[in-house]
């Protein structure tokens, strides 16, 4: 059997996502792998599980992604500034290229999400109530749809919806209960496969 067949068959077998996660390794064990803490035998066990479980592999990958921040923290001050600048320049280049790229043929490796751009401008400020339940933002050029998210201060997701409109009416159930602060943001999914994320805005929820 050729190596590419082994790879394909193995990946086919490892795309299963368990219905329950009772047998999965705890998130802390996945973090131990990333930070190389604890006995090697335990870390190997976690890796072996994660490489056979699509959910744990994705979670390991999320934790591994934080390594980019950690590795940068090890650079000398000048090196950090330089590396950060390079990443920023690379991000801006992707932004410019994304604008000029034809709509077809965008693959995953080249797709890009741009964050904190003025391209998605949030309008609603202040208080959301029964009289004014709408979150409103400006239309983004090239947007096929928008993902709206509203979260509590502790990060709990209150509501998330996808719409082609630039208005989202927050359901009464979300505003029920005592007055509370929340945060909202909008991600514009563009027709060329890229995304633009708005800044985060604080809002007051009242029934």
């Amino acid at each position: 059997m050729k190596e590419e067949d082994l790879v394909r068959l193995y990946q086919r077998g490892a795309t299963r996502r368990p219905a329950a996660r009772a047998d999965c390794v705890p998130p802390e064990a996945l973090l131990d792998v990333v930070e190389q803490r604890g006995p090697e035998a335990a870390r190997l066990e976690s890796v072996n599980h994660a490489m056979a479980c699509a959910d744990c592999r994705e979670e390991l990958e999320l934790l591994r992604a934080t390594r980019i921040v950690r590795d940068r923290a090890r650079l000398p001050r000048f090196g950090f500034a330089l590396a950060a600048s390079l990443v920023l320049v690379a991000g801006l280049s992707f932004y410019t290229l994304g604008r000029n790229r034809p709509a077809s043929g965008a693959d995953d490796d080249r797709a890009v999400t741009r964050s904190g751009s003025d391209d998605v401008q949030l309008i609603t400020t202040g208080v959301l109530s029964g009289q004014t339940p709408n979150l409103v933002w400006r239309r983004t050029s090239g947007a096929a749809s928008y993902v709206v998210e509203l979260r509590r201060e502790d990060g709990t997701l209150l509501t998330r919806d996808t719409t082609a409109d630039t208005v989202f009416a927050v359901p009464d159930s979300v505003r029920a209960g005592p007055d509370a602060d929340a945060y909202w943001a909008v991600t514009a999914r563009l027709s060329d496969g890229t995304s633009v994320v708005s800044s985060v805005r604080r809002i007051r929820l009242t029934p």
Partner: protein
Amino acid sequence: MPRSPDAVSGTLESLLLRHRESVLRVGRRHGLSDQLLDEAMQELRIRLWRAFPGSDQLAAVSPGYLYRAAVTAALMVIRRRRAKRESGVEMTPRFEETTPAREPRPDQAFDESELAERLARTVDELPAARQAVVRLHLQGYHRDEIARLLGWSEARTRNLLYRGLDDLRALLAKRGIGPGASV
């Protein structure tokens, strides 16, 4: 005097932008979904927003602090996702679960499924270290990524990978899954 929320949010977004593109490019190769990453970034945003109400403070956040905050945000999102699964909350279907890349013939699909199952059982039999490096390799991790993740030298990683793949082929051959297996 405290800055306006928009000034803080501009500083916060440029801080996150430094890392987001790199994370996306690296993470997507190994199955990290935009949805999970978006949730983690949002969690991190909120944490930083609450911890640093002024944009001047935010601009001076150390990379060490940012790393710990990113790890905490990632762990929080993972725990929340697991809790949702346990409580039976419907998860958004994933792309690979809703969009089959290519429909194989029914007989071919059965053969591949059976072979994939037998391959998985055979990999389980490898010693732990060889098993880990072989699994990572078969999942598409480069050798230097494997070495970094496991904290091994390049030479140790290479040796264990070659030996592990040899062991795997030998075990598969014993089960009649050799070079001639139809896949």
